[in-house]
């Protein structure tokens, strides 16, 4: 376990694939961070059947558990109440929705309850370590039970949850008569992590779902396929410097502050890049390729990404809002990738305004940098659960 005063970042990623020919997901994933309590609750629920009905069942179950636990109820108690209250399908005589819930602390303590979903994987040093469960049988329904676990996570440990669409993928086909199964999943995850030990949760979840789908004949998923990964690790930080400082005599100070930052560094803005280049005496080179509707990237030693300012930032906000499955290979796409692969993001926002941006002859209206960054902060915090801080300089 991690020391009491030491906290880690809990990374979380989820990926899903709909059942073939359905227009909505029958599995539902929800998570919420509680920064004051240094806590994160994540739920994955699989609704009976598929399509809209399953989606509503899973959504209701997951949301109910999350709200229950967040309201301060004991996780085991909350899960038990939900387990006992879930209706039974009249035709199949089984529960309407299954669930897995993890109540995680940044200090490493985790409580897990599973009802009906495949058993989760606890991954330590890239290897799956079996965990012993305490089984609680429902008082109301004798065929319904939940498995509960308490684990102390260490730096680098991961948890992987999935719906039965993953372990049963390929079932009945020529190659995987009994499906991919838990053994196949464990083998795949261990193999991938031995190649890329620091793989992000997002990528691991995506890879598991993609691999499960390839097991299905003609890649047509017979069930909804979902995977959720949690990872306790040192926070990955990113500093974004955008806009020159209000007081030009502080340029040097901020340039040094920027370059000495421990973590990844990005500059959004031509003038800002020039300022850093001038103060640190490091040359900039700029690409000439046309990439999308944005100016190309530039490069400087010690800086991970350099882009143009307000157009690129506005485009990046758009990408964050629309969340396309594949990000375009332009400067904003690269910036968004950098955001998604960071946990703590700090913006150093220069307050100097470029008068030319208000020229009525400009063919489009340029947003104020400050406003774009504020919108970005909101979406990164609320939708992507990042820790964001803004500093206006």
């Amino acid at each position, binding site marked *: 376990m991690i020391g009491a005063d030491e906290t880690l970042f809990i990374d979380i990623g989820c990926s899903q694939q709909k059942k073939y020919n359905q227009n909505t997901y029958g599995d539902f994933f929800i998570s919420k961070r509680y920064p004051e309590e240094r806590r994160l609750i994540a739920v994955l629920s699989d609704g009976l059947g598929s399509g809209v009905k399953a989606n509503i069942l899973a959504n209701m179950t997951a949301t109910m558990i999350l709200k229950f636990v967040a309201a301060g109820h004991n996780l085991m108690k909350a899960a038990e109440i939900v387990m006992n209250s879930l209706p039974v399908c009249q035709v199949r005589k089984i529960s309407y929705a299954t669930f897995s819930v993890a109540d995680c602390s940044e200090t490493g303590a985790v409580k897990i309850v599973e009802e009906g979903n495949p058993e989760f994987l606890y991954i330590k040093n890239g290897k799956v370590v079996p965990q012993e469960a305490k089984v609680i049988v429902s008082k109301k329904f004798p065929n319904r039970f939940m498995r509960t676990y308490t684990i102390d996570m260490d730096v680098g440990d991961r948890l992987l949850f999935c719906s039965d669409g993953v372990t049963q993928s390929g079932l009945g086909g020529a190659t995987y008569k009994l499906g991919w199964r838990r053994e196949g999943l464990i083998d795949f995850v261990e193999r991938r992590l031995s190649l890329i030990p620091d793989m992000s949760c997002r990528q691991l979840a995506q890879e598991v779902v993609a691999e499960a789908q390839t097991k299905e004949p003609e890649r047509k998923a017979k069930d909804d396929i979902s995977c959720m990964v949690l990872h306790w690790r040192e926070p990955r930080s990113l500093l974004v410097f955008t806009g020159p400082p209000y007081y030009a005599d502080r340029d040097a100070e901020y340039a040094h502050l920027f370059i000495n930052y421990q973590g990844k560094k990005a500059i959004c803005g031509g*003038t800002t890049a020039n300022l850093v280049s001038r103060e640190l005496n490091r040359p*900039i080179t700029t690409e*000439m390729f046309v990439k999308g509707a944005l*100016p190309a990237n530039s490069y400087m030693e010690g800086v991970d990404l350099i882009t143009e300012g307000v157009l690129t930032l506005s485009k990046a906000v758009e990408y964050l809002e629309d969340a396309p499955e594949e990000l375009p290979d332009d400067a904003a796409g690269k910036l968004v990738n950098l955001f998604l692969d960071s946990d703590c993001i700090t913006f150093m926002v220069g307050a100097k305004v*470029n008068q030319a941006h208000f020229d009525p002859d*400009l*063919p489009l209206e340029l947003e104020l940098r400050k406003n774009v960054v504020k919108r970005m902060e909101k979406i990164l915090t609320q939708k992507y659960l990042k820790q964001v801080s803004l500093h206006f300089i």
Partner: protein
Amino acid sequence: MLNEGKIKVQICLGTTCFVMGASKLQDLERMLPPEWKDKVDISAQTCLGMCQNPDSGFIKAPFVKINDEMIGEASVEKVIDKLKELIVV
């Protein structure tokens, strides 16, 4: 040096220049006559700082710097015309 004696063309890709038409200038290299390729060195710049310079007179973005001369409201045609003068001389 490799670029010695070449005409230096610097295209500003700052925000103002980009929206005012520099986006079209990124293709400049492809539009030059092939025999000029060895005579011209084209590069992009994060920002030439002209749009925020009150002394830039009345010339406007997009800006292209050809050797030491700043060209305002630059277009592919305007840059090629200027290069023609320099290459003929």
